[in-house]
């Protein structure tokens, strides 16, 4: 919060394994938020290999919004209320994340422009990568801080 960054600065969040348990928690949290009452995730491409294979996937994959949220949590830790109030995040799920793969959210500041009133407009390239550094989710984040 109140963070100051320069172009080229890099940030990252904790590496997490996309375990079946986490996929279940995300699915259940999402369905609960949708329904407004406690729900459990149902059998789908995220929770069941056979179901995923029936849809042409090699195996069950993590929901794209899991990596989007891990990127978002990394940004919340840096930009806090400014992000919640006026941040913009775009994520593209360019490669699937399979169960138990390790994923690390990362970001790099590509613009830091001073604006009238003392605020700074930051733009970051953001992504979630596997242990080999291959990007699975890519995107962009923009936020105005201060002022």
């Amino acid at each position, binding site marked *: 919060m109140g963070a100051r960054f320069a172009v080229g600065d890099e940030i990252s969040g904790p590496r997490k394994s996309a375990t079946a348990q986490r996929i279940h928690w995300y699915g259940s949290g999402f369905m609960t*938020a*949708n329904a*407004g009452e406690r729900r459990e995730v149902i059998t789908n*491409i995220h929770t069941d290999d056979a179901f995923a294979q029936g849809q042409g996937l090699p195996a069950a994959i993590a929901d*794209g919004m899991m990596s989007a949220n891990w990127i*978002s*949590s990394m940004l919340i830790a840096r930009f806090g*209320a400014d992000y919640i*109030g006026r941040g913009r995040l775009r994520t593209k*799920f360019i490669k699937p994340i399979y169960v138990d793969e390790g994923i690390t959210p990362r970001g790099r500041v590509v613009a830091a422009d001073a604006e009238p009133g003392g605020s700074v407009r930051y733009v970051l390239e953001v992504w979630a990568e596997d242990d080999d550094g291959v990007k699975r989710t890519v995107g962009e984040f923009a936020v105005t801080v201060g002022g």
Partner: protein
Amino acid sequence: MLDGYISDLEPGDVLRTIEYELTDLIVSEYAHGVEDATEFFHSDQTALGGQARTPTAAHVDKMRVLEESCTKERRIAGNNAADWRIHYEFEVENLSPAFVGERLRVEGRVLDVYTKRGRRFVHFEFTTSTTDGRPVSILRDRTLLRYEPETEGSDG
């Protein structure tokens, strides 16, 4: 076309507007589901002055609008289409925090339906505000209607 499947939607379709109250359960269960323990999402005793939803929770607004607009595919009710939809792109612009206890109104429309490398995508836009008129978020979303390409050898 409304009242069918998500795959029946067409460019220009205006989706049904929905309203709902943001509750502690909705906000905190979503954050807990992705292990985000940031206090903003779990209590009102924060610098924000209220318990806010995660900036990603606009994704829930999309689901709620589709539930009312694509009545043959009410996924919250567990009624899925034969083809599982694949989320391809998420883009949210936050205009103000949405707090527990506020009533939200979500409007949605279909910006485009197109085919790329044998795969059909829907491009949506959802605009969320409080019912007293404060803009909260704009969500743009691209969803792949079916993982398997419709034509052979085009799965790039």
